[in-house]
């Protein structure tokens, strides 16, 4: 078994037999094109990331946050990647790889819509037909991204089973793939799924930490004491951590969605959080052995987060392994704290973060003493897509937010 298959006890390939040949083909293509740069694949990928994607992204010193928390806070600005999130790094890599493999069609699942958007953009850029599966609940709370996917020529297929979120969208995309596997590549959106996906997605996303490591040494003259990133499936997390894993002096903190509570309602099959690393148990889902939110029978729980992009009952197997090894520290921030952090970063730094990203800033606010003297926080994406959710969720909560979220009546009256 090759080293792209497992991370300690996690990972593997638990998929229907019909998909196994495609996974073997993908493993072979990954090892040749990505790891060995056959036909100059990685050179083309890096060039497209630069010219189409807008890399490298800056590492920005955050003055207000640094003053407020009495620590040097650096922001890795993945929100400035084309499309507004780190997701393009992976989507572009996989669509390009599919092209090298001679595939004719792209499918993908999406939760918050950022991965779907990135895949639709990459597919349009590389002239590949593209279909996106998205849960009905997520379609309702992430409408701007649905429009963006359609504008880029992708079909968006609503998934209505279950609660209509990411978990159901992944299952549905796997079903499509099982039918069309000979011509289609499934662009999995995070470091999850059967091998080699977790390894490959981490490889495409590791450009984040590769840049950040070099940038922080230039700007701060040293490695950071900590790197903090939000964690749903874990693609921005592994991207931000990858090149620091061997730097034992750098603490790696994965901040999950604490949702409304860390407790679970086993009777109802619901976990009101998405804190898989903090509270999950080992199991097998969507092709990999990893940590999961599940009941005592092994049925997968419905998860919850105010942030659609973190709302997933599983997590990448490599993250689960690094947590078990003590290399990554899991933490969690609840919905309220994430919303407060969303407003705080918008107001104090002029950056409107994705709700996913806001969890990382919620952690900084709650644990300023834990991040050391120099910290890098991964701004995984921008929050334009979340504005409707934020307005709605802020209004119905009693939050410590000094902002008027009502519509400006004067403009409407004057017909402006």
């Amino acid at each position, binding site marked *: 078994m090759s080293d792209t298959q497992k991370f300690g006890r996690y990972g593997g390939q638990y998929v229907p037999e019909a998909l196994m040949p495609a996974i073997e083909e993908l493993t072979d293509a990954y090892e040749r094109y990505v790891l060995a740069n056959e036909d100059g694949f990685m050179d083309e990928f890096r060039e497209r990331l630069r010219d189409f994607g807008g890399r490298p992204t800056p590492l920005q010193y955050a003055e207000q946050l640094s003053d407020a928390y009495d620590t040097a806070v650096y922001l890795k600005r993945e929100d400035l990647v084309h499309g507004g999130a780190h997701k393009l790094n992976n989507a572009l890599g996989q669509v390009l790889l599919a092209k090298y493999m001679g595939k004719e069609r792209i499918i993908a699942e999406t939760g918050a819509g950022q991965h779907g958007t990135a895949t639709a953009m990459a597919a349009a850029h590389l002239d590949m037909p593209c279909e996106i599966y998205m849960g009905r609940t997520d379609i309702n709370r992430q409408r701007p991204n649905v429009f963006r996917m359609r504008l880029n020529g992708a079909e968006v297929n609503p998934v209505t*089973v279950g609660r209509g979120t990411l978990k159901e969208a992944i299952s549905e995309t796997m079903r499509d793939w099982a039918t069309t596997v000979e011509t289609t590549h499934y662009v999995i959106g995070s470091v999850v799924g059967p091998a080699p996906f977790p390894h490959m997605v981490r490889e495409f996303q590791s450009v984040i930490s590769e840049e950040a490591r070099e940038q922080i040494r230039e700007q701060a003259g040293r490695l950071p004491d900590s790197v903090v990133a939000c964690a749903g499936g874990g693609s921005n997390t592994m991207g931000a951590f990858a090149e620091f894993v061997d730097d034992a002096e750098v603490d790696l903190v994965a901040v999950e969605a604490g949702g409304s509570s860390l407790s679970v309602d086993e009777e109802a099959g619901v976990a009101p959080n998405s804190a898989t690393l903090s509270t999950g148990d080992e199991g097998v889902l*969507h092709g990999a052995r990893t940590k999961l939110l599940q009941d005592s029978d092994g049925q*997968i729980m419905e998860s919850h987060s105010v942030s659609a992009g973190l709302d997933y009952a599983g997590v990448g197997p490599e993250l689960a392994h690094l947590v078990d090894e003590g290399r990554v520290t899991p933490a969690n921030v609840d919905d309220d704290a994430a919303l407060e952090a969303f407003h705080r970063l918008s107001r104090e730094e002029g950056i409107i973060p994705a709700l996913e990203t806001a969890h990382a800033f919620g952690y900084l606010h709650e644990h300023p003493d834990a991040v050391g003297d120099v910290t890098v926080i991964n701004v995984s994406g921008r929050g334009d897509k979340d504005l409707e959710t934020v307005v709605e969720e802020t209004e119905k909560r009693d939050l410590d937010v000094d902002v008027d979220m009502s519509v400006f009546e004067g403009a409407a009256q004057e017909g402006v």
Partner: protein
Amino acid sequence: MANNPALGAVFERDEPAFVPYLAAGDPDYEASLEYVEALARGGADVIELGLPFSEPIAEGPTIQSAIVRALESGMTPDRYFEFVEDLDVDVPLVCMTYYNLIYQYGEGEGPRPFVEKAADVGLTGFVVPDLPAEEADPLRAACDEFDLDLVFIVAPTTRGERLDRMREQVSGYVYVQARLGTTGARDDVSDQTDESLARIDDWAVPKAVGFGIKEGDHAARIVRAGADGIIVGSALVDIVAEGHENGDSVETVADRLEAKARELKAGAVRGAAESAEADGD
């Protein structure tokens, strides 16, 4: 090629095996008992009894809906084992489910507690659609320990080394997937079936073909192509679903299932007879 004598005996008979599938607990526990028993009366030789998992990625919409109904009516692994004990049937039962449920069951790590319990209640083997041969060693070992069989699915895309690996691991029968995709009844029979059967022609284990079989004529066609048995799921689950939606009585739905089972079994037997004639027997 079978660990379990009861399952082995089915394929030693001189006729093709009819292997129907239903999800245990669909649409509820009591009705489901009646439905499974109706299949046995209709001529089932082996019954694949689904243990519902919340994320059935290999299933199409028909069986996915059945699984949702069964879960909503309270089916769990422990209830499933009770269900098997409550069934009044005299045919081997094979548990079809996903690996997480097997892995999580009982005290201790790994699949052994589930397999031990399965043997205890009289199940004869397993089909686990998300467990390829590469990941199957622990379950294989537990099956060997308790004389149960582990059935693998050969897909139209399975070739080369993967076929060899599966050949080493499989026991009871091999489930030949007639077409690419997920489960679901179709209106025709795929030509991929012939190719798939040809690739495993020299395997010693019996070959049962599934995916898309809906009518007696399909069954006959599959058996003429060389199958030792036919597996039918969605066409039967459709009968349960329609009866449930229309509010038909349990007895009425059971009668329909029994009639459908007879049609499919008769089709398989006819296919064998036609095949024998063609061979000049």
